């Protein structure tokens, strides 16, 4: 077992045991914090497929996070007001069913990622960063100017959506859903990285011209990766909205894209559990330092600076060694 695999196992055990301890100690706030960390980790796992595997520095992933969130918000708000989303040409009603909302969030963010990726991936480098940022900001300003769904104030959902057989208002049961989804997506991301598709994507990151000579279209590879990445981030957005029972334009903002990217870099870009480690640390710092000062982001900035300067592989890279493990 490699050191990275051992670290990953420790993270899984931590994510499994900490909420159980919090339940035993009657600390529901800790369970909610862990749930938030797990959801952000899920968004990070999504972005890490584009960033770590495909080398695509997207500053617009908040677009998919927000779309997932608003998919939940719009469907749930219509269900709670008993007003259909549309009546003509055919009737579309809201829903309070989590699985249905997830599917719609994944499809919506996937289609958006496909469209945004198809245009953005025609560029590279700083132009790609700027175009993805522009798309994210377009959706941000659109959500602000959309009064039907709260505009700048956002949209509150009074009761958390339902999951068959579970009481989702119970923090530990909602956490169980998030934990299972995160583990399933991590298994998927791990297999994707080892699949011929993932290997070719990794190779295209190193040299797009070289992979073309072995018959691989790097544009197509990257577009698929970007779309998958957007779908996972969209699912995280739907869960995040359900956790808070609130959606707002902030979910679309470039700061959200930046935060996801920052904790991936802190955890380890391209490392399977990099986003998990980064998200947990991010939430810990927000909770611990946020209590001391409103300017806790300064400390986060210092940490990011130290990692970028002295630990390029992020925390996992520093602890597990330079070699990227695929197990």
């Amino acid at each position, binding site marked *: 077992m490699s050191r990275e695999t051992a670290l990953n196992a420790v993270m899984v055990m931590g994510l499994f045991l900490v909420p159980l301890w919090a339940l035993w100690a009657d600390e529901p706030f800790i369970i909610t914090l862990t749930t938030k960390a797990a959801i952000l980790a899920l968004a990070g796992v999504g972005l890490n497929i584009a960033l770590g595997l495909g080398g695509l520095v997207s500053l617009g992933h908040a677009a998919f996070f927000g779309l997932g969130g608003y998919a939940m918000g719009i469907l749930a708000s219509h269900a709670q007001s008993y007003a259909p989303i549309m009546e003509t040409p055919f009737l579309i009603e809201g829903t309070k069913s989590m699985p249905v909302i997830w599917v719609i969030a994944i499809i919506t963010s996937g289609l958006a990622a496909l469209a945004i990726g198809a245009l953005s991936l025609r560029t590279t480098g700083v132009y790609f960063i700027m175009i993805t940022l522009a798309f994210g900001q377009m959706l941000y300003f659109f959500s602000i100017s959309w009064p039907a769904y709260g505009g700048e104030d956002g949209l509150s959902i009074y009761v958390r959506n339902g999951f068959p057989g579970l009481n989702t208002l119970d923090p530990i049961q909602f956490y169980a859903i998030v934990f299972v989804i995160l583990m399933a997506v991590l298994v998927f991301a791990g297999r994707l990285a080892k699949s*011929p598709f993932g*290997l*070719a994507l*990794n*190779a295209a990151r*190193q*040299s797009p*011209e*070289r*992979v*073309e*000579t*072995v*018959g*691989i*279209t790097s544009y197509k590879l990257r577009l698929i990766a970007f779309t998958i990445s957007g779908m996972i981030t969209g699912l995280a957005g739907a869960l995040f909205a359900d956790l808070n029972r609130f959606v707002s334009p902030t979910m679309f903002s470039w700061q959200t894209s930046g935060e996801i990217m920052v904790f991936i870099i802190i955890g380890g870009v391209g490392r399977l559990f990099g986003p998990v480690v980064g998200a947990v640390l991010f939430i810990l710092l927000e909770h611990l330092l946020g209590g001391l000062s409103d300017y806790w982001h300064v400390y986060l900035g210092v940490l990011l600076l130290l990692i970028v300067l002295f630990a390029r592989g992020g925390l996992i890279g520093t602890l597990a060694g330079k*070699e*990227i493990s*695929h197990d």
Partner: protein
Amino acid sequence: MSLLSVQNISAFYGPSQALFDVSLSLNEGEVLALMGRNGMGKSTTVKSICRMLNAGAGTITFNGRNLRKLPSHKAAHLGIGLVPEGRRCFTNLTVEENLLAAARSGAWDLTAVGALFPRLSERLHQSAGSLSGGEQQMLAIGRALMTNPRLLVLDEATEGLAPMVRQEIWGAITTLTRDTGLALLVVDKSLKELRQVADHAVILERGASVWSGTMDTLSEAVTQKYLGV
């Protein structure tokens, strides 16, 4: 009909013309040596054939299909496997991952490549970046074979390698020509080895094909004149 037919192609790097009316042809199962001194246009010809560089004029057909409008990945799909100059393995992947990233279904798989280059089999889980130059060259050949090509293009496959390793690479090339029906376009400066494996040769001088014929007819006077050996 030739498997590969290059007729009077020209090529440019910006405003500079690098190829002038280069022609060559290669049949299924044959080995063609493309020779010339440094800077005479051998690699540019290879890049034009593999569609990494747009040919200015002339025609390039592979298996009857015009390659001129195709991107390089489509040329590779038609069956042209390139072993590029300078090896250029994907150094952040392992040996096995390098091979699998390029794999397409056919006779060449991990086992077949491992039989051709046993050293690669021993280092399947080693990072490609940590291999020796010779091993990286074997990997580059293996990676091109994993695409199951009909034509393998070897651009300076033995350049800069130790004599022992060069011998090993030439041994593998000989095995390929002897045991498979693979057509080979070999760009190299090792005349002695090329004489042993190639059926035909084309010599380039200042971007133009100045001599072509069978290896038997390649006289010392010609090699002295164009290759300086």
